[in-house]
């Protein structure tokens, strides 16, 4: 059976080159100290170079993807293992830009006194690799590998400042929670595998929609049907529900959605501020992109049925996601209300923002009737804007914290006088985080609300109301920092922050202003483009050729036979040992 095993060609490797470039960066980081000696400056340069190469390659590959019309990378039987489409390219580029910012922030901050720069950066790049893979797969196996690849370095990087008790504690919490949620997720995945005998999520989604529809059909006429007839469908539905809930729980953990968010504030507080910056955007946005992909797969699965299944089969899922999103958003904002520690405050703020993004992710769009405002595009724009808001806000916070050694809001007192070129970009970022014009945060939020409104329905209008009320609440805690900066002055002395840090935060602020005023539409249209043409396996298009189907069935059959064979052998062995036990 291994003759037919797929081997990558050179072209396939080319499609995979951005990831390979990151791997190359990792290897270089490992080897470089042995050749040129340890130096955090060299290590930083390696990362910057590697990131730039990755961005360029993603750009190039992305262009070729579009011209080649290619959107899945792997043979048909492993379809969805590694996905190369517009959205994955977009995420790669955005994440790499963000990583550049984090590396810059780190190089002007902790790098100065860091003896283990290479290790730090390896962990950073490693988790980035995991996140990139996470955003480009539809295969259960690859999902769990990607999530673990993203998580394991994150656990370590949180504890990087190992003499700090809080860091160690935070890391331990992170590991344990990560472990629990991985276990839950794997449980859900195994149920899904048991139900559909495949790791390909597209086929799972297809099966789920088929079953849910069957159940709905039974349910409608349940009065006429005998109880016996509806039982199997109901049982199946319970299994599907439990499996999906457990599966999504793992993704919720990465997003830090309520009630899987508890790790977030403690980890954010315990970690170095650069690490907090990194985690606040990267792991969440990668998981959000994965969630978007899953949701999109579900909704396009409805189009695969002859005559077209209606989206109503997925109503339960939509409500589940929507409610979690609303609770996450509300919880994040209210909990941030009383925080004095800036890192904790931003932890809750990031939870709230993940909630906004999840709201749009809970919109299921039928593939045949696209909305005026694509929710996927709205989230993609939001991620981009969120990158700049957080990079700016954390950048300023980091420079203030380094200066004063104080992580509380009172470290910001009088910042408007002490360092105006920090206070002004901070003001822009904070107002943008609230979501007020003329900053990009407003635009990002508007697109999300518009996509919710465009999809209509009670759930989505409810989410719009929740989002708007939450914006109101968030005003308070963001403006507390503004108040501390401009209206309270306890006479701390003024200071000059490092010039590269100033440049970075001011660039972020300028980008936010520009995206909120002059260039409102262009980013969205770009995102609309990146959100279009998502990878959809042939099965979801309902137009799979006979040969393809046969090939997949053959592999599936082979796999089944294999498992059956293993079971037979094990059964044989058990019987044998039983017999041995019986015959003393």
């Amino acid at each position, binding site marked *: 059976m291994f003759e037919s095993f797929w081997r990558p060609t050179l072209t396939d490797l080319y499609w995979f080159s951005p990831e390979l470039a990151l791997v190359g960066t990792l290897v270089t980081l490992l080897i470089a100290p042995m050749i040129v000696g340890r130096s955090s400056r060299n290590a930083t340069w390696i990362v910057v170079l590697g990131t730039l190469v990755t961005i360029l390659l993603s750009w190039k590959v992305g262009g070729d993807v579009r011209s080649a019309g290619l959107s899945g990378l792997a043979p048909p039987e492993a379809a969805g293992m590694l996905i190369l489409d517009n959205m994955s390219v977009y995420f790669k580029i955005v994440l790499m830009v963000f990583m550049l910012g984090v590396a810059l922030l780190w190089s002007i901050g902790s790098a100065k006194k860091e003896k283990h720069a290479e290790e730090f950066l390896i962990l950073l790049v490693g988790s980035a690799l995991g996140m990139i893979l996470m955003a480009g797969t539809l295969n259960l196996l690859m999902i769990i590998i990607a999530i673990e690849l993203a998580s394991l370095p994150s656990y370590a990087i949180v504890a990087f400042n190992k003499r700090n008790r809080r860091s160690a504690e935070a890391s331990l*919490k992170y590991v344990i*929670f990560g472990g629990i949620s991985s276990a839950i997720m794997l449980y859900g995945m195994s149920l899904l595998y048991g139900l559909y005998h495949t790791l390909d999520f597209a086929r799972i989604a297809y099966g789920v929609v088929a079953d849910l529809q069957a159940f709905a059909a039974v349910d409608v006429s349940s009065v006429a049907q005998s109880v016996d007839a509806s039982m199997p469908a109901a049982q199946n539905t*319970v299994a599907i529900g439990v499996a999906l*809930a457990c599966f999504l729980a793992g993704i919720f953990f990465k997003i830090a959605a309520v009630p899987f968010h*508890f790790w977030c504030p403690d980890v954010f507080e315990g970690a170095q501020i650069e690490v907090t910056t990194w985690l606040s955007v990267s792991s969440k946005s990668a998981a959000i992109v994965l969630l978007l992909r899953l949701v999109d797969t579900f909704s396009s699965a409805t189009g695969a049925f002859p005559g077209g299944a209606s989206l109503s089969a997925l109503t339960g899922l939509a409500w589940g996601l929507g409610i979690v999103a609303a609770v996450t958003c509300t919880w994040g904002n*209210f*909990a941030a209300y*009383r925080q004095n520690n800036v890192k904790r405050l931003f932890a809750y703020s990031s939870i709230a923002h993940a909630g906004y993004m999840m709201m749009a992710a809970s919109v299921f769009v039928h593939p045949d009737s696209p909305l005026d405002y694509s929710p996927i595009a709205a989230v993609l724009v939001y991620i981009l804007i969120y990158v700049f808001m957080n990079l700016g806000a954390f950048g300023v916070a980091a420079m203030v914290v380094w200066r004063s050694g104080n992580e509380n809001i009172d470290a910001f007192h009088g910042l408007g006088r002490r360092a105006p070129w920090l206070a002004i970009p901070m003001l822009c970022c904070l107002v943008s985080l609230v979501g007020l014009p003329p900053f990009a945060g407003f635009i990002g939020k508007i697109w999300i609300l518009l996509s919710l409104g465009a999809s209509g329905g009670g759930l989505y209008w409810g989410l719009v109301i929740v989002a708007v009320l939450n914006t109101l609440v968030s005003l308070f805690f963001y403006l507390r920092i503004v108040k501390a900066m401009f209206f309270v002055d306890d006479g701390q002395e003024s200071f000059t922050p490092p010039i590269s840090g100033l440049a970075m935060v001011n660039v972020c602020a300028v980008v936010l202003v520009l995206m909120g005023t002059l260039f409102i539409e262009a980013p969205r249209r770009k995102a609309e483009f990146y959100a279009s043409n998502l990878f959809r396996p042939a099965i979801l298009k309902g137009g799979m050729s006979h040969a393809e189907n046969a090939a997949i069935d053959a592999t599936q059959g082979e796999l089944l036979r294999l498992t059956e064979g293993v079971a037979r052998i094990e059964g044989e062995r058990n019987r044998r040992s039983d017999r041995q036990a019986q015959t003393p």
Partner: protein
Amino acid sequence: MDSSAVQTWALLILLAPLAGAIAAGVLGPGVLKGRSHWPVILGVGAAVLGAFKLFGLVRHGAHEGAHSVTVVLYQWFAAYEGKWFNVEVLVDPLTVIMLLVVTGVSLLVIIYSRDYMREDGQAVKGYERFFAYLGLFVFSMVALVLGGNFLLLYLGWEAVGLCSFLLIGFYYDKPAAAAAAKKAFLVNRIGDFGFGLGILLIYLTFGSLDFATVFDMAERGVAVSGDLSYGRVTAIALLLLCGAVGKSAQLPLHVWLPDAMEGPSPVSALIHAATMVTAGVYMIVRCGSIFAASPLAMTIVALIGGLTALFAASIALVQYDMKRILAYSTISQLGYMFLGLGVSAAGSAVFHLYTHAFFKALLFLAAGSVMHAMGGIIDIRKFGGLRRVLPWTYRTMFLGCLALAGFPLLSGFWSKDEIIHAAFTQDKFLGGLALLTAVMTAFYTFRMFFRAFFGTTRVPEGVHAHESGLWMLVPLFVLSIGAVFAGFVGVEVGHGGMLGLFRPHGAFHHFLEPVLTPFTHGGHEAHATLGHFQEFGLMYASAALSVFGIAVAYTLYVDSPMLAMIMRRVFPATHELLLNKYHVDEGYDRFIVRPLRSLGRFCAAIDEHLIDGLVWLVTAVPRLIGMLLRSIQQGSLQGYAASMMVGLAVLLAFVLWGVIS
């Protein structure tokens, strides 16, 4: 027209002044210091080039029958129904004429400011700030003129208002300047509020803010929902007029302009005489299709214009502050323009706008030169006979005064005469107002001139009076050439008419004609109703009245000054009334400002005691929830894990509940 070329040059005109302003603002304090004028001069200079280039393109296009082009620079954002708001520029004859006036006068004024903003060769405090603001103003003004839809027009409109505020308050440590800036800003807010409402109503009525769409629909008399009703179009026109009245300082919102003279003289010349205040006129011409559809609105425009012209001119008769006289004169001349618009002579109004820019900028700059020489004193009672002290200022100002007074053959004469003529054709009353104002104009202009430059030489004590340097004189020379000859582009020479040589409506009007079709369609044909003799008779009459006004001023202030004193004694009440500007400011203070202040204090008290309490109550809820949520997050691992499991259990329960029900 070649739209890519238009795009290139329009972008240059927009971005060059902005780049200059940013350079002056960013590099000024640390690097450029006393040289901060250079980036702005270069930027605006580039804009002047661009304006000439666009002018060439439009002229070329006019030959081919394409007189206007709209270039979308980029799509800005979409409203909910997928309607686009674009950043777009509209280039047509009206635009290029405004661009030439704005960038040309701006360049001269900025050059002039290089010396004006210095004391004893040292740059004054805030030198770089001044030039950065000027650059920003030029950018905003060209954005206003170039904008291809109401949204951009409004943005430019507000941006010039902001720059005006910043520049009036340039000497912000002087209480009068700060108060004047505030007053200008607030009075403009009243007008802009109406303007904003007008734009909203346009959007509601026509479903678009694009000039092309809106004007096309207005001309065809259709709205989004059926026909365009007369009431609706009148309402829109009046709301727009509200904005124009505020910006162009017409009755009853004229009060801010005289006070705005607290700003530096170049600012008065540029913003409060030549460019920004004419934005109202520009806007009405641009919206001709809307105004022409409503005869009532046109009548109101004409009335406001005519009354303002007379009203302001009468105040200017007795003022002593040189710049304030000029300010009232500006209001009065803007009144002429409104009058012209109201009687459908939009071409003449724009023509007057154009000539007025030259001679009024010249007069303000010359007044600034006097002020500079007199050590900041501008009261014509405190000096006199400056003709020998400031010979070049005297000569250029003389030309400016002649042009303003409407002396025959100078630029102001042609444009003003056209308006008077059009007003007479429409209505004898309006024509009478215009003629009366013309006499007054000639009189007050030369009253100021004679008192300042004739008689025995007197200068305020302790002032070393000296003629200005070349940086200031060259702009004066250029502008005085304009003040004398600029009118001839609007006159046909050698085809009969006045003195058998001059006939109104020349190249200028033909160039503008395609833009003015809405006015000529619905309006009254001036030439058809008046006989040949009547037409040119009016021209001779206005020329004679102008000379008469000058002669009276000469008699009263040079020949026999006693007479003026006697006049004042004979009509003390009138004099008092005019000197106090009809007590308008006091009236506003009493009936509007003070009641509003009391209301404000009342509201503040409510806010402090009632609202704050409510706010505290409202915020108590989230605070409580926040405390609750914080108490869940206690840092205990087991607690977290348990909560997580409970959460998962809730999710599962939700699933099961969904299946069962």
